């Protein structure tokens, strides 16, 4: 009798932790007033927006350290394509791209961290998939990198195609779409494999390099990042030609907080739009007095897009001035890894990057 009481109260306590976090982030309780003038967004309709504004910085969930996407540099400052999304959001919210704090998350921790309100935005090379969008209580707001899953093997194994991998031991991180695609691919091709599933990127890479596995699989960008930054001799490893899945990576926010989702989405699209308009961190000041109406709208000289979002009207100017446009971010972070821009070019250059019109 006594024992069961103790157990019950133990369960209750643990649940309380989860619930309290949830309470702090209650969503959609107050009615949204639809009849308001467009320039004045409904006050208090977005708990995350209000919380971020009050706190004075954006809490950003990132990778624990992936070259090109999210990694602290030698000075301890976070850098990368995913980091730039968070910096853009901070520039839009506060006019200061440095007002971000980072929470490095493993693949397994990331969704719980976002669901429970530990981070405001998850920008951690995360694949937008049906189940995550529909069942996990997340909303993916955009795609900031189009990727696909590949395989890396040591050159001395003399493997030329993923079809030759029957019987191989494969290193993979748990809680990823990669893990599931891997099982699917081998099953579809009637091949056997032995998985070695290790959570932290550093340790899974170490296991691959030690020869614990024949193959390391993750998104091709991740393979390239690992090969260029963590492997003693990059030429000893080859990335196989097969790309076995679609991996659209993008930032995600909690489901149901539309206004915050809008801020994150359009902060990213502003970076794309700027590239399309030819605006860079270098030339945006000269373009402040441009007669091009699209640029006038963009820098906040006309229109009130910023105020519609409930933030400074020079939000997009601040993003480009401090973070740069998407092309600049790509050149700075991803290009040094030797990853071609290919499908991540702008639509008019034959890529998939396409921002809805900013008007």
């Amino acid at each position, binding site marked *: 009798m006594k024992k069961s009481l103790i157990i019950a109260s133990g369960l209750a306590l643990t649940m309380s932790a989860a619930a*309290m976090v949830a309470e702090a982030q209650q969503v959609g309780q107050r009615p949204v007033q639809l009849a308001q003038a467009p320039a004045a967004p409904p006050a208090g309709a977005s708990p995350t927006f209000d919380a971020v504004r009050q706190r004075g910085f954006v809490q950003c969930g990132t990778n624990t350290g992936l070259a090109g996407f999210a990694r602290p540099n030698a000075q301890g400052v976070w850098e990368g394509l995913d980091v730039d999304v968070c910096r853009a959001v901070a520039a839009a919210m506060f006019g200061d791209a440095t007002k971000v704090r980072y929470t490095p998350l493993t693949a397994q921790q990331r*969704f719980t961290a976002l669901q429970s309100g530990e981070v405001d935005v998850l920008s951690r090379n995360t694949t937008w998939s049906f*189940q995550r969008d529909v*069942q996990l*209580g997340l909303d993916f707001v955009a795609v900031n990198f189009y990727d696909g899953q590949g395989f890396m093997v040591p050159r001395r194994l003399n493997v030329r195609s993923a079809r030759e991998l029957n*019987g191989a031991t494969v290193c993979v991180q*748990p809680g990823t779409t990669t893990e*599931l695609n891997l099982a699917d691919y081998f099953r579809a091709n009637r091949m056997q494999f032995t998985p070695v599933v*290790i959570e932290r990127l550093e340790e899974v890479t170490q296991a691959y390099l030690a020869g614990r596995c024949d193959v390391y699989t993750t998104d091709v960008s991740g393979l390239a990042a690992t090969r260029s930054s963590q492997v003693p001799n990059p030429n000893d490893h080859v990335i196989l030609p097969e790309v076995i899945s679609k991996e659209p990576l993008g930032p995600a926010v909690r489901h*149901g907080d539309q206004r915050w989702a809008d801020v994150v989405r359009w902060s990213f699209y502003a970076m794309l739009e700027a590239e399309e308009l030819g605006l860079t961190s270098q030339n945006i000041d000269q373009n402040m007095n441009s007669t091009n109406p699209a640029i006038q709208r963009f820098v906040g000289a006309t229109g009130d897009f910023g105020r519609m979002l409930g933030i400074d009207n020079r939000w997009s100017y601040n993003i480009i001035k401090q973070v740069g446009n998407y092309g600049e971010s790509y050149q700075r972070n991803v290009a040094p890894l030797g990853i071609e821009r290919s499908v991540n070019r702008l639509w008019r250059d034959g890529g998939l990057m396409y921002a809805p019109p900013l008007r």
Partner: protein
Amino acid sequence: MATAPRSARRPPGAGVKLSFNDPVVRAIFWQIVIVGAVGLVVWWLVGNTVRNLEARRIASGFDYFWREAGLPIGEAMIEYQPSDNYFRALVVGVLNTLRIAVVSIVLATILGTLIGVARLSRNWLVAKLASVYVETLRNLPLLLQLLFWYSVLQSLPPPREALNPLPHVYLFVRGLQMPWPQWTPELGTVLAVMGIGIVASFLVRGWAKRRQMLTGEQFPIGWTAVGLVVALPLAVFVMQGANLPLDVPTLGRFNITGGILITPEFTALLIGLVTYTAAFIAEIVRSGIQAVSHGQTEAAAALGLKRGQALRLVILPQALRVIIPPMTSQYLNVTKNSSLAVAIGYPDIVSIANTILNQTGQAIEGIGTIMAVYLTVSLSISAFMNWYNRRIALRER
């Protein structure tokens, strides 16, 4: 419970009056208040959680148990394919946890007892070495030790250059691969005979004990047991033609296949848990032996018992009474510490449940599952050890 003697203090004849000065009334009042408060908190928490899960459209319930898991698992004691459902994946995890826990508990007990006795040795060097072992191992974080052992095992050579200490035994970066007997009906018979032998040994021991009580005559029970458990099955094995086909490892394109493979993840976790826990067990054993006064040894000697008999019949039964309760908590610790497996990629229940939690997004159910598993395992160990403790407890006659 404690209210009965208090109510007896109530002056006789006085009618039952509901007064706050009455300890009985006060006790009942406070119990109602506390139960009510706990109930309210639980009600609020559950309601709030459900509301928020709904608001964010996060799925809930355990229906996902029967959906296809899709996740690959490195080592499984039962047949497992990624096309199996989540429930089976969880069972694989539970079995892996039990496997590491059971093997670690057995080995840690043996090693810990040896080191505990060594600490009391009259040989200065042996005693000091044991002390250094205990002080070093138990003062370093277990996670650090696990990572150390894992990286040591990762410095072994690749498959093509595998160490070959014995014929067909390969030691390399992916573990220790050895020949393993293939299952045959003959092997089944041998194992069955061995099982019968074990049961028979216990029966013989019971009979020998009773006879010794009655007549004082002793029976060579040790040799009888060896005969029943080892010699008899061996004889059956030889009579059937001594035919034992082995599954022998061979080098394939990527891997050495065949036989049985003990993975470095399992080995690193096992070495880490055993050496760490043995340090604590050593101290428990030492304290247990020192708790028995030296007079007992002298008394046993005076009765003419040999040293071995004195240890087995006089010292150990008394030392065990001191040893068992803290030993129980060490066994519980081993089981719980096995969850550090996540760090080095051994697929235990925490690792698998975390992955499932991540794939399905159902954190509360996932954590609930992990809690239920550990609670069940821990309470079972506890119940068994309590039973054993009662059995060896001092019987006051």
